[in-house]
Each structure stands twice: as structure tokens, then as C-alpha cells.
């Protein structure tokens, strides 16, 4: 037990205890605590076990860079692994657990891994077990144990029960980070009338000033913060909100925790908001992250970053121990040591520099701190806790010579500061190495992005505030045209004496276990091993050692690893390069990206206006893209699909049936040049299509492949309606718009989608005329009144009145058929009126399965055949192409490879043995050559009542049916595991002359 709550100090609320549990034991913390500070106050030291070696780990930081105190929070489906205890806000009823340990983090059997460390170095997974025995049962056994032993917490396997929202935000200025620089920037921009958002990942504003004893612009830190925050009234200030990514056009991704800190949240609130912000300007005031130094056993519980120590004292009123050693290589550790000393902790300070500033040393000594200059930490004594620190000094060759052991129970370390340039890295801004301050500073910035404060290398609070105001002044000037006042951004710097770069403390003839990335158990030896094995680029070293690939993404370890790599290669750091930080800055729940687009809201559902009337009558539904289409209409409750669709198809052939065809795309094409436009788009002629007639047409892409087919109706000289396949409705109208706007701007044509304006029903079968005519109040659909491909306006009798309809005589099924169109709102009444007449004749409604059966029998193509790889000839439509005009695709469709005779062409397929069957997707192969891509494929299969067979396929075969007539092919389906002998036939077996639909 080494940490404890101080009798006073901190900004925690000592009057408000908060109960929570750790590994099942009830504990008390205070409002304002994090889980880390509460556990530290309770004296809990071992909070986690390391990834590979199962070494005991404790709190190492006070922020998102935490690599030691990784815990699991919550229970059941709410369980969240790998939470950083330093970022978990303490809340009543919080349950947290140690992870990656058995039976628990304080006594873990996995610690044996540490003894076998020699075999578990970087890349061990690929080497140790990849020689003899690989692929054997022994290897499989090893692998299972390794996988189980290595790792972090385990996620819940249940669906995330929480709800998340995706929010779109806009503002003039987004300030990221609410430390002194960010607050100063946001306040200034707000006071000049800008719409400002200020976001802070912490639950409190102030950053380094929270609980700080320093005086700021003549006031206490708390007083200064209070005044500034009061000036932010007009701004949108979001705490618990992390800017996780900076993207193109300066779009910023935020994740806002909404309810995690509430003991009993309002159930109407989402757990978190994923905010996509489009700011006009961004100021990054993201601060800097302290980094440690690699020395022996620097991962022991009780070793932490120097600034983390003073943060626990100042902000949380928690001391990390009774006897502290603070080790550093720059000025910043003096303030930390002072904070500890003021809190009554016996403090020793080791400064790696030989000659630090006199004032700093004197102030420290005056506060009772023992200061040793030119001294280094070499190795920690102790296993589950710190018992002492071996201290030494540099020898000439850069190694350290041990001098004496200092008894202590906690050690603070600082190896310098790394500006948090992560978001800039997301935009591809390479940071620039500053040798004097031993850190990467932001490089060239994109327009609209500025940096202020420690992220830009301003180390003094006063400089940070000035930098924030200067950056805000630039934004105000850019957006309003007037500059508020002359504020000049300070140059980077702010330390009395420069830092002495220090990455690793090495001792001659002794191997220290010195961690670079504690979260992934990467040691200095691993980095050196990577170099010896040839992984000399930072990107390769990173992947080989996994340095920086844990949940902290290298916030503390990356720069040290890079420096060690440079050292091993005898290069400078700029020569060695840097890895790229990628979003997210900290882990974000994946469910937050989905927001409400889950389950039924994952994709839109489109229903035709006749959905309800069909559904009420018991229709079964199938998905066609976003559409729900009636699959079949059971005649009685027990009728199954296979029975129903054959009955429905037979009914159409022998009597009459009707089907909802509303899902077809419908495009109104209007204007003086509409006919000319259609004539260019379709392969067949449309210029001379008479008014109140319709015509089937096919259109190609520029490359000569079939794009789509459909029927176009002409209502007037300048007024057409083109129908498309259901699948290509959106593609075709976009294609029309493309041609009209980019290629033929001279054509006076307007196109508009009217797909949702019309409901459409096809009535088909020998009795179709009788059924439709009986339903009409006005309109003659006799062969003379409405010849094949004619269009009329008519009036339909419906329950309670009459409605206007359009009727075209056209056929997809091959039977005598009419398509009846009514306004969407009228179409349920149309469905019921027509269905009554169809039923009166003994007919029935039919669904997409019967529709498919009818079109396969007839050899009509759909989007299943027109898949973008098919030419007119392949689809058997070559005769349509006009030779008297130019149309899109006409040039390239004549490419030699597209005019070969042996291209796959449309055909029918029958199993040789009655009773055998095959499925869509089967590969057509030559007999005896079931291999490779075969010679064709199957696109549709049905039972065919009209052709009296239980299995009829449509698809493509090389050379077409003529080449294979009388020969057997094999339909192979290696996925489903069968091969069926089949014969090939003409796709136009049923009513080849089309007499039925002309009747």
C-alpha cells in the first residue's frame, strides 16, 4: 500500500463520497476522482497485468497515454475491456475489474511468462514455433496457449445495448483542448462574435491548470479559469468529448460521452454522440504528452510519469507514496517535485543534467527536496511495488555507473515532452524534429488549421495563453475582416535551461529490462533485436515489435522507440523518420459510428403504395434491393412457395393473373429535343414513335455493353415516360442527367424521376382483356381500340368512384397483357378493383417468383442477365440495333472481341435426367471438363408449367445454343457440391412467334 488520500488539497469534492467496486470489492472514492485516482487513494497498486509477460502493472499516467492501468469496466453486455483507469470518471455503482490475469491481477499464474521471456521476444510468434513441427498438433496446442496467455481484456459477445447518435455540427471555430491555450483562444473568438465550439476529452476544463498552484496573469489558476470560463457563455463547450480524427476539408470527428458518468441516466439519452463537425477554422490546443525514460524495471507499479505524480497531488489530493524519487532531464520536473514536497512527501530529485538553473535548484532545496544533478535512474528494486531505486551517473561512453540505492516507494520519470501532433498527422502533416527541445513540432499546416500552446512547443503557461489569443486573433481577422488586437504568437520554448535528450539508461555488462511500450511489453532489447534482424525503417520496426500498436497507439513509447532505432542505426532522428499516427486518437465504440442505423434502421425499406392491400390479403414478401416485393400470394394459409408460384404462373398462361410492377423505374423525359435524346440513347429508333404508343428499347454504355432495357411511352410530341428495370432505376436517371448536362448541353430536355408518382399493375393472360375491360368505366381496350404496344387514357371503376388510369398493352410474360398505371394514392383502389375482376374469372394475383418463371420460360432478360458484361448479341437482342442512326455505345460494341461468335450467349438449360435440378450460379462446363471458369453460367432457374418441366434454367453458354444443340453440358456447382448433366436449348421455346401476346 503506497498511495493515500492527502488530508487536504485537490479539486475533488470531499463531501461527496462515491461508491464503486474493484474486482468485486466495494470501495469509496470522491466525486471528481478518476478510477485511477480513487484506487491510488485506496492504496491499490497492482491494477493490471502486462500483455505478454504478465508483469504487474499500476497507474503510469493521468491521461489517455496510460499503458499500465488497463481495466474492464461494466458487466454483461455493457462490459468494456481495456478502459484506461486514468480516463474512467468515477460514478456511483461503477464496477471495474482487473484483466488478463488468473486468478486475479494481484496473484497471476501467467507471471511464469516473465521467466520464459527469452523465448517471447519480438517476433517470437513467427520464429519459435515455425520450425520443426509447424502445422502439427503440437503446434496447434502451443498456439492455443499462447493466444490465451497473451492479450488484453475480452469484449462482451453480446450486442451493444447502448444507443448512440450521429450528430452533424457546424461552427466558425473549433478549438480542440481546453487547457490555458484552448480556453484563451475560445474566449477571444467568442468575445468577437464567432460561433465557437470548445471540446475537451476530460470531464473538467483547464488542462494543466486544474488544481495548479501557479499564478496566472496575476490571479490564482482557479480564479483565472473561473473568469475565462465565464467568458465562454456564447460558445458551445463540450467536455468528455474527444476529437479523434482530423480529416480532409478540416472535418473533425468527435466522440462525446453523454451518460457514462451518470449513475442513473435518463433512458432517452444516448450513451454517446458521434459528432461530425465542419468548422470554418480549427485551433489545436491539444497540449503535450510527457514521455518516460527506459531504465531497468521501469514498469513496476509505483513508477509513473513525473507530471502524473503532481497531477494526482494537485488535482485529486492523492499522494502516490511517502518517499518519492523524481527523475528528469529538464526543467519541468522541478514543479512536480515541489508539489510532492508541499504535500509532505519526502522527495528526492535526480536531474540528468550537470548544470540546471540555480533558481530552480535553490527553490527545490528550500522546499526540503534532496537534489542530485547529473544523476540517472538505473533500476527499480521490488516486484509488485517499488522498494528502491538504483541511482548512478553517466560514464564517458554513455553508459551509466551505479552508485547507490535510494529507498523509496514511488518514482516519477520525465524524459521530455512530445507535443500531441496526432491530429495533424491524420491530415498528412509531417512533424519536424526539434533537436534542442528533443521533440517533434508541427510542420507545415493546412489552410484553416492552427496550433497553440504546448502542441506548438510553448512550455510556459503565459506563452500558451498568448499563443491561444494570437491564433484566435488570426481566425477573427480571417472571418470578420478586422483584427482584434496585435497579439504575436510566442516562439517555441520556455525552459530556463535546455533539456538533455535521454532515452535509455544502459549499464555495462548487465542486461536491464527496460520498457519502451509497456502496454505491448516492448523493451529496448526488442527494438535492438528488430534492427539486428533488418527491420530498420520505423514502419517495419513498429510492426515487428508491435511498438505503438496497443490501445494507446504509442502516445508515450513511439518517440523513444524511434530514438533508439536512430541510435542503433547511428543516424539522427530526422534521418530515421517517423511513423504516421492514424485515427482514432483514442478508442471509440464502433456502435457510435453506426448511430441509429442498426437493425430495422440499417437500410431504408421501400414499399409500393399497394403494399398494404397485398399484405392484408396474406402476401409473402421478398427483398429486391431496398424494395419489398410480393414474392407469392398463398391461396390458403398452408400453401408454400413452390406450390404457389407454379399455380400462379399456370394461371397466367391459362387464364389471367395480375402483379404489382410499381418498382420499375419511371423517368419523365420532356422537351423539344426529347425524341432526339431518346434516339441517341437507345439502340433502336425512337424518333418516329407515334404519340400514344410505346416501344421496347435497349441502351448501351459507352463501352458497348448493355446498360438497361425497358419500355418508353410517348404521350405527346415532346413528352415521354421511360421505364427501367427495378435494379437500374437510379443508374439510368443519373446516366440521363450525365449525358444531358455534360455531353449534350445543347439538347432541350428535362428528365425527372416519377417512380414514386405512379402505381402500376400488369394484368396478363388469355383473359386479361376481359378482366380489365370489365373494370373500366371509360376506355376501349379491344384489339382495335388498344393494339399491341398502344397506350390509352381510361377511367377505372373503383370502390366509391372512378379514377383516371393509363393503360399500355405490353407484355413481359409473353401473354396478352396490359400495364395499368394510376396515381400512387389511387393505386390501392386500382389493385382491389382489378383483383375483383381477375378473381371473378378464376384468376389470381401473382408475385415475383411467378413473374420470374414466366420471363424465364419466355426467354426475356432482366438485370440478372444484364450484368454489365453482356452485349446486345449475347442477350439475343442484336436485331434491335439500328443501322440508320448513331447511338451511345455503337462504336465500341463493334470491337473485335465483342463480335466473336464464341462469346457466351443466352440459352435455356434442361437437366438430362428428369427430377434432377440445379441453382442460379452454377457454372456451365463441357462434359468431361469440369474445371476453371467453364463455358457459361446460370442466371435463373424455375419450374416451368408451360414447358412441362420441373427445372428450367436460363443463362449463358459460349457460342449460344446453336453451338451446343444436341450435345450435353455439365452444370457444376462446387459451392453446393453437385454437377448435373444438362442439354442446351433455344431461349425462345415458348411461343417463339409471339402469337399469344398479339392475340
Amino acid at each position, binding site marked *: 500500500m503506497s498511495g493515500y488520500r492527502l488530508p487536504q488539497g485537490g479539486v475533488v469534492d470531499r463531501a461527496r463520497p462515491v461508491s464503486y467496486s474493484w474486482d468485486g470489492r466495494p470501495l469509496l472514492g470522491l466525486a471528481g476522482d478518476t478510477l485511477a485516482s480513487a484506487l491510488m487513494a485506496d492504496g491499490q497498486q497492482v491494477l493490471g497485468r502486462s500483455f505478454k509477460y504478465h508483469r504487474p502493472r499500476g497507474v503510469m499516467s493521468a491521461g489517455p497515454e496510460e499503458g499500465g492501468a488497463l481495466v474492464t469496466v461494466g458487466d454483461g453486455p455493457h462490459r468494456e475491456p481495456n478502459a484506461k483507469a486514468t480516463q474512467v470518471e468515477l460514478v456511483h455503482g461503477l464496477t471495474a475489474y482487473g484483466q488478463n490475469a488468473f486468478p486475479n491481477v494481484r496473484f497471476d499464474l501467467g507471471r511464469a511468462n516473465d521467466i520464459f521471456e527469452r523465448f517471447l521476444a519480438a517476433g517470437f510468434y513467427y520464429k519459435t514455433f515455425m520450425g520443426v513441427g509447424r502445422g502439427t498438433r503440437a503446434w496447434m496446442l502451443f498456439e492455443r496457449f499462447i493466444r490465451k496467455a497473451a492479450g488484453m481484456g475480452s469484449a462482451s459477445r453480446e450486442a451493444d445495448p447502448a444507443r448512440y447518435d450521429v450528430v452533424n455540427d457546424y461552427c466558425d471555430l473549433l478549438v480542440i483542448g481546453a487547457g490555458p491555450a484552448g480556453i484563451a483562444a475560445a474566449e477571444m473568438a467568442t468575445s468577437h462574435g464567432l460561433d465557437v465550439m470548445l471540446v475537451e476529452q476530460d470531464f473538467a476544463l483547464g488542462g494543466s491548470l486544474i488544481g495548479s498552484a501557479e499564478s496566472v496573469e496575476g490571479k490564482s489558476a482557479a480564479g483565472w479559469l473561473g473568469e475565462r470560463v465565464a467568458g465562454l457563455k456564447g460558445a458551445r463547450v463540450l467536455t468528455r468529448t474527444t476529437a479523434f480524427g482530423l480529416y480532409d476539408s478540416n*472535418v473533425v470527428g468527435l466522440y462525446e460521452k453523454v451518460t457514462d458518468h451518470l449513475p442513473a441516466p435518463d433512458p432517452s439519452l444516448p450513451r454517446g454522440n458521434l459528432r461530425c463537425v*465542419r468548422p470554418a477554422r480549427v485551433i489545436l490546443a491539444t497540449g503535450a504528452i510527457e514521455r518516460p525514460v527506459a531504465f531497468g524495471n521501469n514498469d513496476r507499479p509505483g513508477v509513473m510519469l513525473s507530471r502524473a505524480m503532481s497531477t494526482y497531488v494537485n488535482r485529486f489530493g492523492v499522494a502516490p507514496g511517502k518517499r518519492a524519487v523524481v527523475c528528469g532531464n529538464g526543467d519541468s520536473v522541478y514543479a512536480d517535485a515541489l508539489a510532492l514536497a508541499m504535500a509532505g512527501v519526502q522527495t528526492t530529485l535526480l536531474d540528468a543534467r550537470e548544470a540546471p538553473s540555480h533558481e530552480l535548484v535553490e527553490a527545490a532545496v528550500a522546499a526540503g527536496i534532496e537534489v542530485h544533478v547529473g544523476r540517472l535512474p538505473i533500476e527499480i528494486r521490488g516486484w509488485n511495488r517499488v522498494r528502491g531505486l538504483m541511482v548512478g551517473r553517466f560514464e564517458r561512453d554513455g553508459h551509466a555507473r551505479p552508485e547507490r540505492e535510494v529507498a523509496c516507494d514511488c518514482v516519477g520519470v520525465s524524459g521530455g515532452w512530445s507535443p500531441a501532433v496526432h491530429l495533424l498527422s491524420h491530415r498528412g502533416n509531417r512533424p519536424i524534429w526539434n533537436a534542442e527541445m528533443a521533440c517533434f513540432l508541427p510542420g507545415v499546416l*493546412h489552410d484553416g488549421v492552427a496550433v497553440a500552446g504546448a502542441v506548438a512547443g510553448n512550455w510556459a503557461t503565459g506563452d500558451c495563453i498568448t499563443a491561444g489569443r494570437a491564433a484566435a486573433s488570426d481566425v477573427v481577422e480571417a472571418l470578420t475582416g478586422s483584427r482584434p488586437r496585435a497579439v504575436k504568437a510566442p516562439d517555441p520554448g520556455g525552459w530556463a535551461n535546455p533539456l538533455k535528450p535521454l532515452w535509455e539508461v544502459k549499464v555495462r555488462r548487465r542486461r536491464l529490462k527496460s520498457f519502451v511500450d509497456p502496454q505491448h511489453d516492448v523493451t529496448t532489447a526488442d527494438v535492438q533485436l528488430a534492427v539486428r534482424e533488418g527491420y530498420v525503417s520505423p514502419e517495419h520496426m513498429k510492426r515487428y515489435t508491435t511498438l505503438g500498436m496497443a490501445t494507446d497507439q504509442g502516445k508515450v513509447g513511439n518517440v523513444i522507440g524511434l530514438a533508439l532505432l536512430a541510435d542503433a542505426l547511428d543516424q539522427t532522428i530526422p534521418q530515421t523518420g517517423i511513423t504516421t499516427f492514424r485515427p482514432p486518437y483514442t478508442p471509440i465504440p464502433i456502435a457510435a459510428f453506426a448511430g441509429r442505423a442498426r437493425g430495422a434502421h440499417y437500410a431504408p425499406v421501400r414499399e409500393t403504395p399497394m403494399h398494404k392491400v397485398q399484405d392484408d390479403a396474406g402476401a409473402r414478401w421478398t427483398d429486391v434491393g431496398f424494395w419489398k416485393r410480393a414474392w407469392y400470394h398463398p391461396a390458403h394459409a398452408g400453401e408454400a412457395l413452390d406450390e404457389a408460384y407454379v399455380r400462379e404462373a399456370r394461371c397466367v398462361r391459362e387464364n389471367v393473373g395480375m402483379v404489382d410492377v410499381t418498382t420499375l423505374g419511371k423517368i419523365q423525359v420532356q422537351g423539344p429535343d426529347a425524341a432526339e435524346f431518346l434516339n441517341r440513347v437507345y439502340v433502336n429508333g425512337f424518333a418516329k414513335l407515334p404519340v400514344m404508343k410505346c416501344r421496347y428499347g435497349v441502351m448501351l454504355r459507352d463501352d458497348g455493353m448493355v446498360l438497361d432495357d425497358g419500355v418508353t411511352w410517348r404521350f405527346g410530341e415532346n413528352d415521354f415516360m421511360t421505364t427501367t428495370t427495378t435494379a437500374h432505376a437510379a443508374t439510368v436517371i443519373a446516366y440521363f442527367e450525365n449525358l444531358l448536362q455534360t455531353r449534350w*448541353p445543347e439538347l432541350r430536355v428535362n428528365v425527372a424521376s416519377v417512380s414514386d408518382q405512379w402505381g402500376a399493375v400488369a394484368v396478363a393472360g388469355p383473359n386479361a382483356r376481359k378482366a380489365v375491360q370489365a373494370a373500366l368505366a371509360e376506355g376501349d381496350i379491344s384489339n382495335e381500340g388498344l393494339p399491341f404496344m398502344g397506350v390509352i387514357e381510361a377511367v377505372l371503376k373503383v370502390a366509391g368512384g372512378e379514377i383516371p388510369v393509363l393503360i399500355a398493352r405490353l407484355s413481359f410474360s409473353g401473354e396478352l397483357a396490359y400495364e395499368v398505371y394510376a396515381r400512387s394514392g389511387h393505386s390501392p383502389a386500382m389493385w382491389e378493383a382489378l383483383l375483383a375482376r381477375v378473381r371473378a374469372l378464376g384468376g389470381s394475383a401473382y408475385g415475383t417468383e411467378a413473374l420470374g418463371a414466366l420471363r424465364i420460360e419466355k426467354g426475356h432478360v432482366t438485370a440478372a442477365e444484364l450484368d454489365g458484361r453482356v452485349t446486345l448479341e449475347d442477350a439475343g437482342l442484336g436485331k434491335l440495333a439500328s443501322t440508320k442512326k*448513331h447511338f451511345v455505345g455503337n*462504336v465500341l460494341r463493334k470491337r473485335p472481341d465483342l463480335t466473336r461468335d464464341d462469346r457466351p450467349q443466352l440459352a435455356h438449360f434442361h437437366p438430362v435426367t428428369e427430377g434432377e435440378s440445379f441453382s442460379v450460379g452454377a457454372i456451365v462446363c463441357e462434359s468431361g471438363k469440369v474445371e476453371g471458369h467453364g463455358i457459361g453460367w446460370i442466371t435463373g432457374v424455375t419450374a416451368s408449367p408451360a414447358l412441362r418441366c420441373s427445372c428450367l434454367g436460363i443463362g449463358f453458354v459460349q457460342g449460344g445454343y446453336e453451338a451446343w444443340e444436341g450435345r450435353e453440358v455439365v452444370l457444376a456447382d462446387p459451392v453446393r457440391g453437385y454437377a448435373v448433366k444438362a442439354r442446351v436449348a433455344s431461349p425462345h421455346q415458348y411461343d417463339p412467334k409471339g402469337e399469344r401476346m398479339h392475340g
Partner: protein
Amino acid sequence: MLRIPCPFCGPRDHAEFSYEGDATVAYPPLDASREDWFEAVFLRANPCGAHREMWHHVQGCRAFVVVERDTLTHEIKGARLAHRPTAEAIQ
């Protein structure tokens, strides 16, 4: 997320648009030679730097927009309507 300045709608997320290819391609007349068509349909430069792209504001005003974008930095310098007569009319 790229922000595309649509001449009708103002700056909008690129998610509202669909990419429609290289706007520097001049498509030949329908009766042009096979070589001309082959070049227009299949041959594309892969420029590093300033480029003109066609974007369709498919979830907005449905205008085809010529966007000047830097393929290296993703910076968008400007956008104009592809339909010249309309572009001139609204000037």
C-alpha cells in the same frame, strides 16, 4: 470527408455526391472513329496534383459539377456546373 462547394447548394459533404470520373475527358461525337472512342472511354491519365473531376450531386440538386481537386493534398480549389448554358445563365 471532402467538402465540395456545389454552385447551387453551397459547401456540402462529398457523401452527398457520387464520383463520375475524369472531367478532362472530351467525349467524341457518336459517329467518331473507334480509336477516338477507345481513347475517351479507356485511357486515363493518373495525375499527381491539380486535377478536374466530375461529381454528381446525386443526393442534392442533381447537378453535375466539375471540381478542381488536388489528388495529392485533396485540396479543392473550386467547382463549377458542368452544364455550360446553365452556368452562364446564373453568372
